[in-house]
């Protein structure tokens, strides 16, 4: 028998039910949305911190090893060139390194007219003459024989002639030779595209001149490591050849560098005129959450300042491993 209690819901009940459902769904979606926002914000913040860490880490390593392979009696070539961004614009730096295993030769005479350097042949360079051909080699860190002083066309290596502060980079027009007096004879290709100052190539305003030739040293060039900020893409870019710049960190808004120099060690300055006195770099990096618009409420900024001392610059004061303060450096 059919019972009478199978009544459906009344319109009022349905309306209340629907309203409750909509209200609850709304509340749940608000929570989910908020959760999503927090997730996005946290992921972006982690990404921002990662970018900052990458920038700090790379700059620290490169600055610490600046001047590697370019020894001088009192330390090394003051290998950090800078461009100071005007009125608060981002700064950029270039670090010059020599090949750490290639021997260095002391210049005796430089003759611009014949595009020629005469130098003392480094004792580590082995000269072999066979059938009228002279080849020069040295032993690298892995014990392998490596050729040196070949012409740029047969071995595209660059060489750097430097004193404490100034330098010229050049290409050899022909293979090195030993002249009648036993000196190493190196000839370079003329023209500014083949014989240039790292400062000029980098667009640095200072120290574009010639080294003091009779006091200079010639070494095989290692790497040119540069950092600059791309203000359009907000990427920190790094180069090893001054031609190809690769982004290494995203969301970087500013890169400011100050230099602690010996004559004003307590107050870092942004544009030291004497690079020879540079002892440490105080770097300030500003990073943002790269994937979020500045108008987003989840947009974050972070700024970090750190200091890093190039380890090769101050060897006169760091004749590590030796108590002899007059130690000479023979790399």
């Amino acid at each position, binding site marked *: 028998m059919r019972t009478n209690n199978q009544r459906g819901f009344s319109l009022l009940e349905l309306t209340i039910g629907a309203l409750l459902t909509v209200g609850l769904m709304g509340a749940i979606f608000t929570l989910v949305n908020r959760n999503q926002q927090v997730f996005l914000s946290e992921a972006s913040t982690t990404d921002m911190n990662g970018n900052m860490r990458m920038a700090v880490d790379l700059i620290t390593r490169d600055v610490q090893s600046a001047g590697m392979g370019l020894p001088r009696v009192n330390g090394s070539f003051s290998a950090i060139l800078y461009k100071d961004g005007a009125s608060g614009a981002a700064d950029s730096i270039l670090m010059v390194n020599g090949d750490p295993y290639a021997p260095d030769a002391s210049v005796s005479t430089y003759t611009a007219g014949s595009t020629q350097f005469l130098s003392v042949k480094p004792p580590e360079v082995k000269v072999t003459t066979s059938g009228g051909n002279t080849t020069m080699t040295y032993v690298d860190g892995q014990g392998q024989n490596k050729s040196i002083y070949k012409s740029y066309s047969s071995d595209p290596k660059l060489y750097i002639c430097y004193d404490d502060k100034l330098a010229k980079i050049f290409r050899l027009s022909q293979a090195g030779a030993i002249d009648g007096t036993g000196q190493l004879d190196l000839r370079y290709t003329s023209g500014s595209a083949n014989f240039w100052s790292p400062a000029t190539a980098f667009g640095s305003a200072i120290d574009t001149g010639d080294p003091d030739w009779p006091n200079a040293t010639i070494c095989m060039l290692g790497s040119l490591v540069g950092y600059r900020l791309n203000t359009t893409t907000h990427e920190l870019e790094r180069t090893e050849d001054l031609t190809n710049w690769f982004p290494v960190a995203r969301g970087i808004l500013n890169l400011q560098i100050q230099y602690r120099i010996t004559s004003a060690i307590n107050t870092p300055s942004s544009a030291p005129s004497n690079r020879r006195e540079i002892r440490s770099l105080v770097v300030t990096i500003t990073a943002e959450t790269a994937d979020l618009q500045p108008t987003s409420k989840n947009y974050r900024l972070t700024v970090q300042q750190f200091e890093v001392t190039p380890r090769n610059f101050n060897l006169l*004061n760091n004749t590590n491993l030796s108590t002899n303060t007059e130690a000479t450096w023979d790399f």
Partner: protein
Amino acid sequence: MRHVESNEAGFTILEVAIASVISTVGLVFLATLFTLGIAQNRMVKQYTTATSLAQQKLEEFNAYEKTDARIVTTGGGLAKDSTDPKQTGYYDTVYVNPETGTVTNIIPQGATPIYDRYWKVENDQTLNNTRIISVRVAARQPTVGRRSEETTLTTVRSW
């Protein structure tokens, strides 16, 4: 006439009160997780900043000339206990500006957090012309409890 069943009783006030207490306890417990998260975040930030400040001081020591009195003269202390007290000229108090990132000795009114930095320069027992430099950085305001976030870093400088 329709028979009205008598099993439609709701919850008693006691049941509702107990349920409410249980829910509240649960919610309060969950809420503490949020505050814990925030506190941990601040703690990590203070540890990171303290380490960064200590590193910065060590790099500064690396930048000094070997004739600089600050590296030549041994002394100082890390203010860890009475055997290693802080000494004049071997500590400072710094503030990290969150906007510009600059580290400054000028502390703005009411600024938090600030960090106390102590350092010590010692002779190496076996090597000549070698200094052992230690830097201890402690946050002035601990995030939780009485123990503040701090870090101690040590390096060696020789010439």
